[in-house]
């Protein structure tokens, strides 16, 4: 899929971090060079320079443009994460202290285990049964808070089979760090078989 938001998020991350490395390197090198070059033993008499209007204008305007470009790339990635494609499969997720319950279209329920078929976009509709939680699936760059009395959502495109860990990222108590689970992306056939399986309970 060509508008997979994972790529947009990564582009925003690389763009911002890349520029950051460049700026950091430039600032640090120049700073150290000045400190060495103009040390008092070598340069006993300082120059009386109080500013430079053009230079100050330049380092106001140029960073503003770069910052706006970063904003735009971040916003594009965000819109990618928020715009659910047509035909997405909807699964309900309920967060509680300290586990995740998933309810599939055919009313099947699982706990801390999310199974989806490869190739179909998935929209998770999330809410909380008690305090705030947050659903975080690092491999697909999605995260949203689970709030009682309110529905939030994330969507992702399962483009490869495999197992991916998800976490709770809003502090929720003593079991917070163990409130995680596993996303399994399986073939559509295996997914059908999973849906028709009897619940363990």
């Amino acid at each position, binding site marked *: 899929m060509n508008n997979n*938001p994972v790529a*947009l*998020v990564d582009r*925003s991350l690389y763009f911002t971090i890349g*520029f*950051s490395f460049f*700026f950091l390197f430039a*600032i*640090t090198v*120049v*700073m150290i060079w*000045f*400190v060495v070059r*103009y*040390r*008092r033993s070598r*340069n*006993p*008499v*300082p*120059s009386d*320079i*109080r*500013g*430079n209007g053009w*230079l*100050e204008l330049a*380092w*106001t305007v140029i*960073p503003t443009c770069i*910052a706006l470009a*970063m*904003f735009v790339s*971040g*916003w594009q*990635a*965000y*819109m990618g994460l928020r715009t659910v494609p047509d035909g997405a499969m909807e699964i309900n997720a309920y967060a509680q202290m300290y586990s995740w319950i998933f309810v599939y279209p055919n009313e099947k329920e699982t706990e801390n285990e999310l199974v989806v078929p490869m190739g179909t976009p998935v929209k998770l509709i999330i809410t909380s049964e*008690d*305090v*705030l939680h947050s659903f*975080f699936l690092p491999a697909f760059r*999605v*995260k*949203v808070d689970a*709030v*009682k009395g*309110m529905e*939030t959502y994330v969507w992702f495109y399962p483009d490869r089979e495999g197992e991916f*860990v998800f*976490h*709770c*990222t*809003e*502090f*929720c*108590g*003593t079991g*917070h*760090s163990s409130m995680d689970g596993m996303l399994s992306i399986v073939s559509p056939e295996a997914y059908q078989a999973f849906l028709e399986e009897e619940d363990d309970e």
Partner: protein
Amino acid sequence: MEPVRSFFDTPSPSRYSGALSWLLTTDHKRIGLMYLFVILFWFVVAMFLGGGMRLELMFRGRTLMGPESYNALFTLHGVIMVFLFIIPGIPAIFGNFFLPIQIGTDDVFFPRLNLLSWYLYIIGGLLALVTLFIGGPPDTGWTFYVPFSVGTQTNVSVAVFAAFVLGMASMLTGINFVTTVHRMRSEAMGWLQMPLFTWSIYATSWVQILATPVVAITLILIILERFLGVGLFDPARGGDPILYQHLFWIYSHPAVYIMILPGMGVISEVITVFARKPIFGYKAMALSSIAIAVVGSLVWAHHMYTSGMSDTAVFVFSLLTFLVAIPSAIKVFSWVATLYKGSILMTPPLFFSLCFIYLFSVGGLTGLVVGAAGADIHVHDTHFVVAHFHFTMFGGTGFAFFAALHHWWPKMFGRMYDFKRAYWAAVLITFGFLLHYIPMFILGLQGMPRRYYDYVAEFEAGNFVAGFGAVFMLVGLLLMLVNLLISLKRGTLAPSDPWGGTTLEWKTLSPPPLHNFVETPDIADYPYDFTDVVRDSSGDGGGV
């Protein structure tokens, strides 16, 4: 001629002596020093709490403590560092001591209110201490997010009330400084002749006055919610938990500028003095402080991109967040440009300031990552954010605080400290800092959430390495503090102007007399004119 006695030997009011001459004093310098020692006490406490957390995280599973203790530890580390160290640190100690001196006056406008602020600070600190021993320490994180903070059985009410009282102290100090700058400033000193440290404290004070009441009320609402169940924030009673987050961050984001602005002021002073050169772009520096204070008050919801608020809100707050980065960038460029063609003398305060510029740049630049809406979704509430704000708050404000300590220590106590030990300490702290926090950036990008007592195998290496960084840092910090304390007894006497500074605190004795100046100081047309300093030093390498 009789030697002028320092404020240490001249109690004010003069009827008290001994301990009372400190506990009941209205002298801004004594109050500043009383803050110094209490704040350092809290800093050391919270430093060990933080160290404990990182030792626990060095290995998977239970290492030192259970999850309850761990949760209490990060809550108290956050509450103490934020409310008892970083927010009051530079304004209450150095602002109190030096703001009146830098504007050529003898005290703050409300000296007794100043003392009251100190007592409120002490009471707030004691309340925070009480939560450790009575009713179970709070386990909510320093953000006290509802509904968790309303439901938990631990002592949240007292901790929240402690933050309320500390907010009160902070507000009163802000009112005092603003009034002092307006009413007590030497008549010969116009706005654009004020030193930049004073400018930064002035801008900070306005934020303290305007933003603190919001959090004070919000914290009281939590207490009402807990005891009376009014249902403002609790969704079970029809309340809105996101409303709480807005109210909390309306204060707490401006609060990060309350934390960093005074630090920026310190760096401006230190760099000019040791480069012996005027600050590059004085007006841009002063204006950018105000710009940060104003725009910084309008970016609070960038802490809430994942909270479920509207996409429009995300758009607006992300855009404003990028705009607030600009004045900070201008400051960094101006500091570096100040070094150009200076006559630079390396000293411990300058060393800390250079480390500040590096670490704060990392903090600021990673702030762009968390400011970008889509990128932030991935790193929000992970260790990336933890590393980011430690680079700004600790690498920034913390290092500025250390620079201020070393810059003004000779003025405050009249003693020089040992440079060699100070350098060793600074190197250890910086090295430990990088070893400690850089792995957290990587952990965060990998997806390790914050406030995690335990973690999956993928995150083992980063947490293990970070633990060693913490140890280096702790050793360095203790060495730094011990070195300074030793100097009080053994240090050589400091001259009035050990560094060759131009602002007024260097025109009086070390330590200053009770009324700060022996004779009314001359106010320069431009606060950073080093012409006289350069002439007097006659090319011998300066005052040191």
